[in-house]
């Protein structure tokens, strides 16, 4: 089936009443959690994971994807009108978006953010659709050594891109790997790190881990940290940008689409990284850089486009290689696995409905989001007036309910609370939890492929990975990523000495 035919097939799946409802629900929930500060898409997906088990798999994934990109749309509203980022990816939108709103230009800021998100999201979905089949076909030739090399490369990128410190990020990834080891070993049936607890024999569940670290941890931190919310600026009557706004935003939107997609594809390339990089690029290439920070529309259009483009870009490695590039996608991978679907190169062959249904739903979702966000902005702003003091106990209730409901297990409740405490401490000390969750999900695949590759090698030598071109390239890239800080440090040392001698 050619790409166009497959896409038509995808639309026929995405446009069934149940799936259309799933897109709408996802887009709506996503916008709501995007608008509300303190509740991100990872926590929401973790909360909804137990519920999605009872749903049809394609509908569940369509809804989860909708929540993810919907959150990027909603996040900008809070940034622009209240100067508090609704989402991590909307942090930079506060800088110029809020300044525009203070000058009475909240309408064009919100409008351009919505249109930019729409364009970035749509361009990125087209790219996902065109690239994924080729990548999946290539990945079909991957054996265990190549898969291990690819996962290893992904790990090195995750450690570098998601934290303030590379070693800290890698350490969190190691803790995630260790948590993934707990339970009975699949191959040899040995109990590992279960401390005599029957509950741990099946391993630690992703739901308690994700709900604890991202849901409960976040809520506990917000209870403590809560700041008085600033005045919410008046919702503007019209969101339509002027011709001049469009002229100034055209190139930032184009650059944001490409940059965002590129970053989204890289492991660790979170939408927040894309928006930050887009802001830096726009500021550098701007004709009037002094306007940045004072209400430059380029500072809203570029980053808001980039974060949506990155969101869709992340689906390429997820759907074709089975590698999630951030914690939200790790939960989507978990949802697929719970339904017995293994994402990766075989997804397109074995479950084309899942692949093309989700892709087609993203086109529909982007249209729904612009319809939801532009005329209904006033409704979403009203959500900001609901006191967080009412929302947080209710979210805690749903976390505990979700943790228990999955297996009717008190053990899961205990695990959720312990991981909640861990998430709270990580948040309080500014430690990024994403590498932990990614490593937890990818760890068993990494172990499995390493074991298979070593057995395949007959010699057990790590040099075996360099005897095959794809794995050699990927391992070399991973080593380069790992050694980059050392090379940079050495270079600075040499340069510093050179300067001092001169």
């Amino acid at each position, binding site marked *: 089936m050619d790409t166009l035919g497959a896409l038509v097939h995808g639309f026929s799946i995405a446009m069934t009443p149940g799936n259309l409802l799933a897109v709408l629900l996802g887009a709506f929930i996503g916008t709501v959690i995007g608008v509300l500060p303190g509740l991100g898409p990872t926590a929401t997906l973790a909360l909804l994971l137990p*519920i999605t088990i*009872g749903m049809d798999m394609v509908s569940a994934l369509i809804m989860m994807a909708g929540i993810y990109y919907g959150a990027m749309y909603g996040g900008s509203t809070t940034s622009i009108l209240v100067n508090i980022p609704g989402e991590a990816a909307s942090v930079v939108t506060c800088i110029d978006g809020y300044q525009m709103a203070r000058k009475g230009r909240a309408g064009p800021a919100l409008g351009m953010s919505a249109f930019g998100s729409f364009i970035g999201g749509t361009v990125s979905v087209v790219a996902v659709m065109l690239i994924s089949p080729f990548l999946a076909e290539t990945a079909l030739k991957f054996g265990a050594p190549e898969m291990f090399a690819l996962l290893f490369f992904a790990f090195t990128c995750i450690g570098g891109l998601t934290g*303030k*410190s590379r*070693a*800290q990020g*890698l*350490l969190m990834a*190691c*803790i995630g*790997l*260790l948590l993934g080891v707990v339970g009975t*070993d699949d*191959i*040899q049936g*040995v109990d*590992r*790190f279960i401390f005599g607890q029957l509950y741990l024999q099946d391993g630690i569940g992703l739901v308690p881990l994700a709900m604890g670290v991202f849901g*409960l941890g976040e*809520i*506990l*931190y917000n*209870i*403590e*940290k*809560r700041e008085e919310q600033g005045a919410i600026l008046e919702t503007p009557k019209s969101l339509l940008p002027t011709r001049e706004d469009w002229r100034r935003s055209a190139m930032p939107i184009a650059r944001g689409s490409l940059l965002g997609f590129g970053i989204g594809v890289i492991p660790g390339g979170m939408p927040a990284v894309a928006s930050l990089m887009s802001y830096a690029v726009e500021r550098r290439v701007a004709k009037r850089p002094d306007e940045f920070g004072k209400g430059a529309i380029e500072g809203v259009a570029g980053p808001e486009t980039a974060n949506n483009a990155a969101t869709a870009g992340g689906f390429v490695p997820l759907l074709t290689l089975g590698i999630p590039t951030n914690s939200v996608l790790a939960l989507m991978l978990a949802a697929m696995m719970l339904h017995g679907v293994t994402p990766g190169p075989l997804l397109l062959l074995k479950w084309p409905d899942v692949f093309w249904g989700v892709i087609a739903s993203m086109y529909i979702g982007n249209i729904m989001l612009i319809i939801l966000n532009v005329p209904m902005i006033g409704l979403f702003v009203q959500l900001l007036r609901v006191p967080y*003091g*009412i929302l*947080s*106990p*209710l979210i*805690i*209730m*749903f976390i*505990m*309910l979700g943790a*228990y*409901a999955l297996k*009717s297990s*008190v053990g899961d*409740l*205990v695990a959720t*609370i312990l991981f*909640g*405490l861990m998430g*709270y401490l990580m948040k*309080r*000390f*500014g*430690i990024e939890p994403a590498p932990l969750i990614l490593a937890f999900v990818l760890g068993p695949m990494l172990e499995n492929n*390493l*074991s298979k590759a*070593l*057995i395949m*090698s*007959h*010699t*057990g*030598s*790590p040099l075996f990975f360099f005897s095959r071109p794809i794995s050699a390239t990927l391992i070399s890239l991973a080593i380069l990523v790992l050694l980059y800080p050392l090379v940079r440090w050495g270079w600075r040392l040499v340069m510093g000495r050179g300067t001092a001698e001169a």
Partner: protein
Amino acid sequence: MNLDRILGVGALLLAVPVGVASWGFGVGTSKSPGAGFWPLVIAVVMFGLGVSLILRPSPGLVKAGGSSRWGRSSLSLVTLAFYVVALEPLGYLATTALMLVVQFRWVEGRSWRSSLGIALLASLVSLVLFRVLLKVSLPTGVIPLPRGW
């Protein structure tokens, strides 16, 4: 003390027992890895990262955000511990309502009236939604529920 150094010490303290335990699982050989091979690899990497964090910590990663509201998050955690202990003997409705009352009244500082009202309403609505409509198995406990719930 720098946060990276604290994490580094923590990594070393964790890596050593993990490494020892991995040995006990059976490391096997590199041609035929045993159940302890992978955790041993993790322990070795973790040890290396711990040493790296202690020797070369990143600057500016020192402090935790101090806060005057930490007592509220601690109280919130205590109510969650109560939830774990009481859920099966007291049942979903009573435990959830009690937990929510404490959360609204003392953690969030809302009035008695709104705390009680929202707590009761939320626990009842969630019970109907999950137990009655979604057929999720939730413990009944001490409060008798109508037939069919």
